[in-house]
């Protein structure tokens, strides 16, 4: 087996890490976090701009609930006075809005009206409902996405301009669905903020883009009190977790190992903060989750390696600590790489298949994992090595002192050996 000289990297690693952390702290103190809605009182809305396509009403008894999915629409009828059933209309066999409307109207007591060109393809319909879509006398509108580039009517700058002074808008998915993330900050001046703002946002957008073309898909409101609680809670939890890991690792491995593990994890957290600050990524609950996950992940890594060091020292008590560390790190290198890669596969799966804050979460995790692997190899072991070296020097000094005092030198090394044995 090849033994890599990881120990050579200890000092350069310490310098690089310190530089990165300082950079992160500088960023934090000059710019601060790009706080998300969880930490900053305000409203986050996901708004979609779409064309009204169909209007559906129901005049019968019982409940009729309309659901619009990607490829079909269905109405679930339930209640005592009517026959309970589900009627499904798929867009493929009802290819145009005109045909679809006729199919709707063919259902007893359901009426549908086309608000758009009759020949428009049904597949353009999108699920835009705010949930409860119980049909009744008041018409329920179904929307469709633009059919070509020319129909796309709202670049994000225009949306942002329409909301000027009220909120700011960013694009959520650039895939062409005209969906935007709108954020309005609660400055505490309006007591009814959570009620007035969504209405104001909708009104402003409808004024610019036309009545009925604005669909709110998601609304999050966080009040000042909530965000304060969350920040405090997060910090306390972070510290408590670190403390617990320290205690557990100290009991199982000895203090220098426990401290080394904690140092490595705090290092990873700081590197992630550096990343989040400088990329201006939104800092929200997902970011905290990522931080705390890396805490667990990085410690996991570190402990597997310490376990090897512990074992090796028991088997070869005479060896230099430096050799023991290099051997342990080399032996577990395969495992470190494989585990990191396999976890990265899943992190990438999350990154590519989810949207919104989970995407950010996956990205932060990715950075944290790289840092975690690196810190396990260089920071945690580096610290333990540095500590052992110091202890060695102290022991040597004590030894020299005692030898000078004329005490029998042969007895002492044994005693000091016993001491290290205990520390493991």
């Amino acid at each position: 087996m090849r033994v890599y000289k990881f120990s050579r990297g200890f000092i350069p690693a310490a310098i690089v890490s310190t530089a990165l952390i300082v950079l992160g702290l500088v960023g934090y103190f000059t710019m601060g976090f790009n706080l998300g809605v969880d930490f900053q009182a305000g409203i986050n809305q996901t708004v979609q701009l779409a064309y009204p396509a169909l209007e559906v009403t129901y005049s019968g008894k019982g409940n009729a609930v309309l659901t619009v999915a990607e490829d079909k629409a269905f109405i679930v009828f339930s209640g005592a006075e009517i026959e309970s059933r589900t009627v499904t209309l798929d867009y493929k066999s009802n290819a145009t809005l005109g045909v679809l409307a006729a199919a709707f109207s063919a259902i007893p007591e359901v009426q549908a009206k086309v608000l758009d060109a009759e020949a428009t393809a049904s597949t353009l319909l999108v699920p835009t409902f705010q949930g409860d879509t119980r049909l009744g006398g008041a018409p329920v509108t179904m929307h469709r996405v633009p059919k070509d580039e020319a129909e796309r009517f709202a670049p994000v700058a225009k949306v942002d301009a329409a909301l000027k002074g009220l909120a700011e808008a960013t694009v959520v998915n650039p895939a062409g669905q005209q969906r935007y993330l709108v954020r309005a900050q609660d400055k505490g001046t309006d007591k009814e903020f959570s009620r007035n703002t969504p209405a104001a946002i909708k009104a402003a957008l409808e004024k610019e883009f036309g009545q009925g073309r604005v669909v709110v898909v998601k609304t999050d409101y966080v009040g000042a009190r909530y965000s304060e609680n969350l920040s405090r809670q997060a910090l306390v939890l972070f510290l408590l977790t670190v403390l617990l890991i320290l205690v557990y690792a100290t009991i199982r491995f000895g203090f220098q190992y426990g401290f080394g593990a904690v140092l490595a994890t705090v290092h990873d957290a700081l590197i992630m903060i550096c990343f989040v600050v400088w990329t201006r990524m939104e800092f929200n609950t997902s970011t905290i989750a990522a931080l705390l996950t890396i805490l667990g992940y990085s410690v996991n890594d570190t402990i597997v390696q310490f376990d090897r060091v512990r074992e090796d020292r028991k088997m070869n008590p005479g060896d230099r600590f430096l050799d023991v560390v290099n051997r342990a790190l080399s032996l577990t290198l395969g495992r470190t790489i494989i585990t990191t890669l396999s976890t990265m596969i899943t992190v990438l799966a999350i990154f590519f298949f989810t949207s919104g804050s989970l995407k950010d979460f996956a990205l932060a995790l990715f950075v944290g994992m790289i840092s975690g692997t690196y810190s396990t190899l260089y920071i945690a072991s580096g610290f333990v090595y540095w500590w052992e070296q110091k202890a060695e020097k102290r022991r040597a000094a004590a030894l020299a002192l005692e030898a000078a005092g004329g005490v029998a030198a042969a007895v002492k090394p044994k005693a000091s050996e016993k001491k290290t044995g205990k520390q493991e």
Partner: protein
Amino acid sequence: MSKTRRFIIVLAVIGIAFAFLYPSLNWYFFTPKEDQAIAVGSREQIREYSRRMAFKDITELKRLAAAGDEKPLPSEFKDVVGVAAKLYKESRLAAPKVWTAKTVLTAFDNERAAYDAIEAKYRATVLAVKARHGNAVQLGLDLSGGMSVIIQADLEALSKKLGHTLSAAEREDAMKRGIEVLNNRIDTFGLTEPVIRRQGEDQIYVEIPGTADPERINSIIMGRGKLAFHIVDDEATARLETYLASNPLGVDEKSLKVADAGIVPAGSVIRKFYKKDSYGLDEFTGRYLVINEVPGLDGTHVQSAQVSSDPITGAPETNFVLDKQGGELFYALTSANVNKTLAVVLDDRIKAGARIQEPIRESVRMTGFGAEEANNLALILRTAALPIELSVVSQQAIGASLGEESIVQGRNAILVGILGVFVFMFLFYKGAGVNATIAQVLNLYLMLSILTAFKLTLTLPSIAGFVLTIGMAVDASVVIFERIKEEMAVGKSRKAAIDAGFHRAFWAIWDSNITTIIAALFLAQLGSGPIQGFAVSLAIGNMVSLFTALFVSRLIFDFGSDTLHRSHLSISWRIK
């Protein structure tokens, strides 16, 4: 432990896990949507549905019987026939060969009994589906769509108003009143049953699955609960009762109106009478009262209310005190309406009624109910006397369509994650990689089952937690496999290498997982939803992976060496 015994343990674990997962499978895949729609309603809505269904069936049966129809009943009467067949059996009568409307009806003593039995049958059927829903894995709002609101009760303002700091009992009372007001309004709309619960010291959590219109939330929270005293129109109420005796479904559910215009005079309205069920929730008693539309007295005049007992009979009574102006108004009202009924109405729901025996001024005594009812009434009266300010702390509304999207995202992430890990492990470890993947798939299955068993909510972050756990939990297998490879490199046999590998990797896996679980459990304490879901799945996944990696993987290896007598171990492309 022998392999057989270990195998039985693994099978037992899989079996138990399946028992927990079964309701979820049943609900999400085999329950028709229309049955789901009824089952997610509130108990009151279910009751109303059963009543209407029973009434419809009885009317149809009576019509068929009167027409002398001798044909067997159509299949939609299957349930009714079942009830009748049971009755025949109980009274030891031979069941008729053909179930006609007449033979079914003769099973019951009278029409009322038939109605009750059929209603009970319908209700039991829907409640069984509802119970299945309760045992199925719950989807978080981000997956199902819906709204959640955290509402803050302003106890400080109340304390200021009262001029002293609130005692623990007073705080409790104030919170109860806040929840009472919310309960009152929230049930009146929507198709799904809302969740209202107290959170912490002074917050209330409200969740309405399936609906996401923020306007609605506002209508619930706004205001303080409007309490008023109305005079009951006894004559019209009596007319309504006779009308309902022949037309049990005469009152329209939504508008609370009847078709016959002669029953309710102008200026009067029909309202439902409610009482508390054993859970402290409002339950419709089935009684309707006709009350004057204009309240006789507004509830804002109430100054205090408490419960005491009659000095002679010991019967509980509710006493309340009005302010001076209210006392004058009340005196005029009660003088003019002696021997009529006075209804206490909160947000259009009648909560109590009492006969006016004599003209009353400020100090009012209401009698004639049980201790529980008297307490409830006092609580309701105090909601007017000591209104509690409610404000929104945080609010989330997610459209159902967005939820669907999230489910697809989560599913894809899981599939690709597992597949990626599988390919990766196979490339690195060959046969052993397949073993590790089996352990991970089992891990996922057990995680879902545990999540269901503990009634935890499945959210998109918790799905992310699952995906991530799969990647991280592979670590245990990797540590073991690397060890086995090392042992094989020094020339050990398959069996010896496996033994030594598992043995020596044990503590490393144990220590590293415990620390991860510590971090995850702490994370789970963070009060916020998304992180919690993520952390819980991380913690569960790590614990389960200890079992699958150490126990199940080992069993598969041992099965290969002992039962299949393999001497070669497929763990690397390089080691032959």
